[in-house]
């Protein structure tokens, strides 16, 4: 009932796979209310992360997350780069030296990660950003922790909450990021960053469902 180093690496690999697969989809979402690069950015970043796999192989989870964060920071660019970079760097700080994560550890890591995103981007819930997926996911996780749910169920619930948060971005008028330049015209479109956040958390739920 805990996430090992290998589980962590598998999650990262599965993030890379799922973002490569959804590259065009994310780009399409970004074309509608942004600049058509979110898919390419995330894919480029996680491809660079994959190239770092050998050097992460024997590291603790904190180091793995920090390596992922630094790599995303120097390869993604745009809004996604600093946000996801900070996300993993902050998660890494909370997981420093850890060889496995309990549900509680993961919740603490995700809480720090989200706090980092909010600190960097200053978005609030409802601004039509990745925060709209991440925050409900964290809240679901906290609830599961309180309810003593098993890890797999907790992750599924958290991914499900992220998915709902993502879908809930559709009617919103963006108040942060590039989509906010559109004003009212941003309504009616799903936020690309909320979508990639959902994909990443869903990959965690999928990868770790039997741990």
């Amino acid at each position, binding site marked *: 009932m805990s996430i090992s180093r290998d589980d962590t690496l598998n999650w990262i690999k599965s993030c890379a796979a799922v973002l490569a697969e959804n590259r065009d989809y994310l780009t399409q979402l970004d074309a509608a209310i942004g*600049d058509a*690069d979110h898919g390419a*950015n995330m894919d480029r970043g996680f491809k660079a992360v994959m190239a770092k796999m050998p050097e992460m192989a024997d590291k603790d989870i904190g180091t793995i997350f920090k390596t992922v964060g630094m790599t995303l920071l120097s390869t993604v*660019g745009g809004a996604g780069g*600093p946000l996801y970079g900070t996300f993993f760097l902050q998660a890494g700080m909370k997981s420093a030296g850890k060889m496995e994560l309990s549900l509680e550890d993961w919740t603490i890591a995700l809480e720090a990660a989200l706090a980092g995103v909010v600190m960097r981007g200053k978005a609030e819930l409802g601004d039509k950003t990745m925060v709209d997926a991440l925050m409900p996911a964290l809240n679901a996780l906290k609830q599961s922790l309180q309810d003593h749910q098993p890890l797999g169920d907790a992750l599924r619930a958290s991914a499900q909450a992220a998915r709902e948060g993502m879908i809930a971005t559709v009617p919103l008028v963006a108040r942060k990021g*590039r989509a906010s330049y*559109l004003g009212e015209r941003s309504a009616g479109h799903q936020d690309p960053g909320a979508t990639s956040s959902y994909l990443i958390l869903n990959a965690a739920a999928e990868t770790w469902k039997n741990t």
Partner: protein
Amino acid sequence: MKKLINSPENVVREELEGVALAHPDLVRVHFDPNYVVRADAPVMGKVGVISGGGSGHEPMHGGFVGFGMLDAACPGAVFTSPTPDQMLEATKAVNGGKGVLHIVKNYTGDIMNFEMAAELAMAEGIQVESVITDDDVAVQDSLYTAGRRGVGSTVLAEKVCGAAAQEGRSLKEVADVCRKVKAWGRSMGMALTSCTVPHVGKPTFDLPEDEMEIGIGIHGEPGRTRMKIKSADEITEMLMEPIIKDLPYKAGDEVLLFVNSMGGTPPIELYIVYRKAHEIATKHGLKVVRNLIGPYITSLEMAGTSITLLKMDADLLKLWDAPVKTPGLRWGM
């Protein structure tokens, strides 16, 4: 996709290789991380001025590196802000001991990446000031949003800040010049056609043969409104009126009028726009004392134009007229 490129992945690298081969007297190009830097950097005792942003807007920013303008430029992927390691390395490379100014266009990505670079540079003991350009009046401004996009006035800011630094002014003084441009510059753009991001391979938006987008961004972001194409004079009015309404100017003020091509619009059309823009400015009592006409802040091959007005005072005039020698802008030497 009709482009003179080899593969989408190599567009930025090969463009930079071209720049390196074309202008070794003016700039050096550093790869991994990517930045374009003055051939003689760092200039000791001079404030360094750097900027950066997504590629696809050439000559901005790499084409403005050289004497009297930028000390370095950090190109990101096409339409994607560069990463903090690029700005950090560039900042170190141009630090002549008097600090470094970061000129940042107001996009969340640019701001966050530059912010992180500035934090890292300052941790290494380099003084950094950042000024954010946000001149696009097409965007509704509000405390609760990301504010306005930084567009055309960035080019003008780079010129005058570069001249101020070249003159030997302090970091605060150079940043003050930038803040003046921020306060006094306003822009608005429009598109006749979409651009195609190389790795996407198809136009960012579909614009029917008889329609245009008013208030377009420089990344193919949709604009304020879409409508039937109008005459050049009517379009120029639709760009000039919101600018002038927003301007902190009064009749009698002197201005620089910048008519920019989004990449696919040729000079013959720009002059037709300039003619009307000049007429409108004059009608409002503004005195056009300087101008810039051409493709300076492009959006790949997008057809369209943007207009920027910048109020000028004696100091800005002097800085504008000061010698500059870069691949993209050159006079006085």
